[in-house]
């Protein structure tokens, strides 16, 4: 199945890939790779490029304090004395339960397209970062259509459900602006073709 060039949406296909890449980088547990990308400015460049390509207002974000970023990540997505604002599981956003029908559909979908979680990935397959990464893999393999499905049917609902919570609860100056940006970006990056 290939998409007709004439009905291709205005966005180039690599916007999708880049957007997914950015989602994957942002919602993984803050690790050395992210730190390197932040320090080198590669992260900021990618954000700026995406903003320019899609016309979504670029976010104002900052990373003043690395340990603070790590703590905020935990507070927002992992554990929080006041309740976790945004559990990072797309199935939870879609079904209200873990490993529910949507998570199962995602699993079947990924299996169907030959993507599986790596042995070192100790989390659910429907973690936002994992889904985005799967999308990147699919896009790299030329399966833009499948990547788009991940973006539209799985990632976007998570942003719709939880982006406001992240924005409200963030005090790092990083996750809030980026989530807002990525949320609008994902709703802008339309994969749908005119029928």
């Amino acid at each position, binding site marked *: 199945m290939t998409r007709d060039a004439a009905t291709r949406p205005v966005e180039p296909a690599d916007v999708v890939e880049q957007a997914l890449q950015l989602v994957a980088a942002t919602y993984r547990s803050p690790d050395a790779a992210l730190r390197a990308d932040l320090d080198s400015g590669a992260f900021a460049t990618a954000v700026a490029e995406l903003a320019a390509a899609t016309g979504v207002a670029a976010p104002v974000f900052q990373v003043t304090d690395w340990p603070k970023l790590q703590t905020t990540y935990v*507070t927002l997505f992992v*554990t929080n004395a006041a*309740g976790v604002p945004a559990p990072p599981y797309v199935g939870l956003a879609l079904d209200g339960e873990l490993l529910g029908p949507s998570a199962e559909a995602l699993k079947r979908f990924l299996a169907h397209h030959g993507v599986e979680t790596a042995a070192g990935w100790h989390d659910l397959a429907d973690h936002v970062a994992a889904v985005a990464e799967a999308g990147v893999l699919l896009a790299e393999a030329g399966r833009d259509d499948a990547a788009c499905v991940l973006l539209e049917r799985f990632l976007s609902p998570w942003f719709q459900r939880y982006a406001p919570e992240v924005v409200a609860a963030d005090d790092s100056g990083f996750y809030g602006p980026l989530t807002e940006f990525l949320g609008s970006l994902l709703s802008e990056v339309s994969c749908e073709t005119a029928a």
Partner: protein
Amino acid sequence: MALGGSAQAQLFPDGFPNPFRAPPGKWFTKDDVTTSYNYCEICFWKCGIQASVQGGKVRKVDGYESNPKSRGMLCPRGQGGVATTYDPDRLKKPLIRVEGSERGSGQYREASWDEAYDYIAEKMNQIKFEHGSESVAFFGHGTGDAWFASYLPGAWGSPNAAKPSVSLCTGPRETASQYTFGRGISGHEQIDWDETDYIVLIGHHIGEDTHNTQLQDFALALKRGAKLVVVDPRFSVAASKANDWLPIKPATDTALLLAWANVLVEEGLYDAEYVDKYTVGFEQLAAHVAQYTPEWAAEITEIPADTIRRIAREMAAHAPRAVLPVNRHTVWYGPDDMHRMRSLYIVNVLLGNYGMPGGYYFCDAPVVEAYPHPALPLSPASGGCGGGSTDVVTDSPFRPAADRGKFFGTATAVQELIEPMLTGEPYPIKGLFSYGVNLFHSIPMVERTKQALKELDLYVAIDILPMEHVMWADVILPESTYLERYDDLLLQAYKTPFISARFPAHPPLYDTRGAFDMAKQLGERLGLGEYFPWENVEEYLDRRLSSIGSSLEALKDQGTIVRRGRPYFADWERLNRNPIGTPSGKIEIYSERFAEAGLDPLPVFVPPIEGPSGMYRLLYGRSPVHTFARTHNNPILMEAHGENGVWISTSEAAGLGIRHNEYVYLENQDGVREGPVRAYVTERIRNDCVYLVHGFGHKTPLMRIANGRGASDNYLQTRYDLDPVSGGAGLRNNWVKLVKGAPDPQHPPVAWLAREGSRA
């Protein structure tokens, strides 16, 4: 070509879930259902289960026939406990408290396992250097407590390893049993239900405490026509099945038991032949109980003397197939708890039922060699359900446990290890491991515990859920649930001793590990690698099983290996062996060892402490669908029983102007307030006490479903009375009043919380 329609079908192998289509086929219609053997960890009865997995998720667990503890059946907790594994609130990754943040403020960063282990090891070594290895305490509860409350502390060298299952639960019965029979009561209660004809339950909540096979045996005994007497200040579920209910005044059970002993002796109803053959000290007992007449007991217990006499005679008429079963939670009122258990055993002995059909049978655990390892430097006296340790740790270079001298018994008392954290007496405790022990919902005096935690240099919590106390830890190690991990073999002492094993139903969902791995990894970093010589858990289990000619692979298909038992005296006598382990080799009605230690050699009654006027003694118990305080975030179980109510008698409630289901506060003698909690106005309780089901009243938004539902008895237990013999903490000496005017908390439905309420 448009993306949609047929393209969509091609993208999705079998379609995207559509809420408007007919409900999809249930799990049992799918073709990828597999099963694996396990033993349940929702309570500690440890029933053998088979987990049915479909789509990477356990859908159902069932008991299986060949397992003597489930026999194909399962209780509500076991059935619904599965949902905890899929609880979004679970602990998912190792967490380290942010440097400089206050304990209890709950600020964490994620860490790798290596980082977490290194962090812990460094702090432990520092504590060892500054204060000695004894200054790290280990609390454990659950299957993995073998590693964290026995093995690791033994290898590390801390006698301060304790299990709440001793001093907050079974302590009195175990000490009494050790000093009467020279053996413990096994982890389950060794009552020969199959043969008994007359059952007297004292404060024993069968039916509310859904220990699976015990409930089966109890029901079958009643079906066979066994008579049942229930002694309880509350009309329990068991009482609803009873021929006689004796609504006893709380804290006077020992008086009743002594009066029964009196009747049996005075009227010559005891089994003289049995007593002669198997016991010592009957004469002293006869002289001792002469004073405890039914008339004396009637005044204390508020049970008519005639009734006391009648029941004693009925017991004797059915002896030896009449039994007074031992229950599990035996720390009740403190000072005479051990004596109460001794009196219970002695009445049983007078009936001649210990080691006889229809009474108490003997059971020993099946023997499977331990994995060969160097001898541990010390064996910690953490005790446990299966019998307190009798080793007193005095060998140098280790100091004795920090609770030594406070009581006679040898198993460590968990609540007595809190004080040294605060006072540094007899020596400071600066480090703490809490493996599955809910510090704020099991140990009395919660405020003291919180203060103590603030004083520590290292506090490590190992758990599955972010319980209140977990969020105070410096390092949080998330454990895999029983459906995701291997564990040590279950070597169950039973009428038919058996071995069962736990196989993970699927890999861990998150970055979690089993206690086994954690102990080994940590041990290696502590320089204790020689004590952890196995490669991994599979190799460990396989090697152990090979010593009995089996293997891990064989057990994978089998689940349980059942052995033959030696339940009765006759079985032991055929082998010329004596099951009684006392110094005299006989059942010691009169205990020389107690006499030597300056304790009462025969059971005595200690009159109960009376509470302030206008207040009610706070009793607590169980719900059939919950275990301790650990199942209250499980949506399935919480939907069945979502909040507790404070039981108060109809007449008292009328006097206070409290309506059924009205929300009230509970305020105890020290002004601690709990609630809002529903008033459960009922005819089923005496006027002088109120009752709460334990485990409710969680106080953390991190556990969305559990948070704020009902009241916690433990937060109201701001005092306790130490049993000077066993070290048990008598918790039922707290008094509460009901305060009107509590708002209706308007709990959202569990179904809604489970789906929507991701944030409090």
